[in-house]
């Protein structure tokens, strides 16, 4: 912990200089930030897909599932981070304490998005698929999900981008990631703006890269979208 204040004070508005003087530490934080941003979204998607399907298939479950989701969103993430060790029985500095709450937020967002995405598939398409001999599961996998991709991907972009920002709040429970840079800048006036700016810049770049990745995958998964558009 002591090493994070080790470098000499630099100019106040010099995020690049701060990065050069603390490269190893900052890269460590960046790597854990990347993991903490991606893992919950992947886990959340794995849980949200079947739940979203249930919300679509059994319409009576849509209301309760959406209500629970929006209730979950009103709980500040710091509270979930802090209470996680007590509820999960994990160690105080375990990354699981951040991964589980962020996964819950992703599930809460994506269940509705997936249900709405599946609902956006036109009825005649479903009937055509059934008429062609698709079973329920085959139809879901090969017809409904591909058509729902644009809606699901729009929600996933929101989930990923907001996740990158929420990870920084894990600083409050002592888990190191880019949010540490904000605390250093706030507590050490000698460093001032440099670490804070560096943290914001790295977070935004990370969010843009992850967002761009989803946009790219969406383009690859929906070739028909370009086929009908004029060149």
């Amino acid at each position, binding site marked *: 912990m002591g090493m994070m204040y080790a470098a000499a004070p630099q100019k106040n508005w010099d995020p690049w200089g701060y990065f050069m003087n603390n490269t190893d530490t900052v890269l460590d934080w960046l790597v854990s930030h990347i993991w903490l941003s991606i893992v919950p979204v992947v886990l959340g998607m794995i849980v949200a897909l079947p739940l979203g399907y249930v919300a679509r298939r059994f319409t009576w479950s849509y209301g309760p599932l959406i209500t629970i989701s*929006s209730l979950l969103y009103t709980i500040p993430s710091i509270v979930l981070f802090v209470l996680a060790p007590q509820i999960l029985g994990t160690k105080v500095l375990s990354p699981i304490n951040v991964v589980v709450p962020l996964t819950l937020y992703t599930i809460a967002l994506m269940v509705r998005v997936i249900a709405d995405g599946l609902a956006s598939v036109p009825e005649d398409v479903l009937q055509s698929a059934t008429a062609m001999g698709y079973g329920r599961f085959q139809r879901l996998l090969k017809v409904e999900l591909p058509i729902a991709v644009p809606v699901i991907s729009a929600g996933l972009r929101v989930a990923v981008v907001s996740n990158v920002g929420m990870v920084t709040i894990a600083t409050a429970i002592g888990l190191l990631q880019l949010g540490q840079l904000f605390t250093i800048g706030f507590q050490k006036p000698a460093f001032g703006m440099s670490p804070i700016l560096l943290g914001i810049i790295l977070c935004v770049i990370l969010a843009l890269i992850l967002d761009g990745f989803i946009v790219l995958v969406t383009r690859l998964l929906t070739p028909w979208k370009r086929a009908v558009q004029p060149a």
Partner: protein
Amino acid sequence: MIDAIIAYLQLDKTWSGNRSIPVRLLEHLEYSAIALGVALLIAIPLGLVIGHTNRGAGVTIAVANALRALPAFGMLFFFVVLISSQIKVRGDLPYLLPTLIVLLVLAIPSILANTVAGIQNVSPAARDAAVGMGMTGSQVLFKVELPCALPLIISGVRSASLQVIATATIAAAVPLGGLGRLIYDGLGQGLANLAGVGQMATGAILVALLAIGVDLMLAGLAKLVVSRGITGRYKHKAFKGSSSNVPRKAEVVPS
């Protein structure tokens, strides 16, 4: 968890003095109301103009989405370091201003994006009919487009208020008051302290209750101000099912 909350609720300082729940609740409401009020004053006129003229709509929505990528904590500390060294006044202002800026940056995008989308979603037939009746540009905007867009605008305000109320907890990191104070102070006493854990849990529950309460209020307001011609809530059966403008809720993101 329950016994921790009970332990905290039995303390004297919970109910009286300048660190009590009522004081923190009022502070939280104050930050949230100022931020939301200013956000409404900026985002709705701007959204109406952009939606009506259809200029810069694409850019506006792209910028609104990009703003999501900014970490609230980073912005807060950025503006605190930037502003508090410039303002030499006593009191909370050097910390209050940065907090309000962060809340504004959170609130404006969803209100703005929904206002623009709401105006753009107005059926061209309704707009053409209004023009055909001889309405001027501003009459079309205020008598046709705005009423038609209201459900979407209010849903944007609802998601903004959820986000602002949940995020106003970070004011306590600066350190200001608000319900976040309960969370941070409780956390500061360590997880071994029963009343401390209770204080934190109470803070979290109150934030959630406040957010839900305001959301329900705004939902009630929507029922009052949105024209029945749009919601299709008629007593007479003949008019039912004429609703064409289905409100689409903007994405809400926890703090």
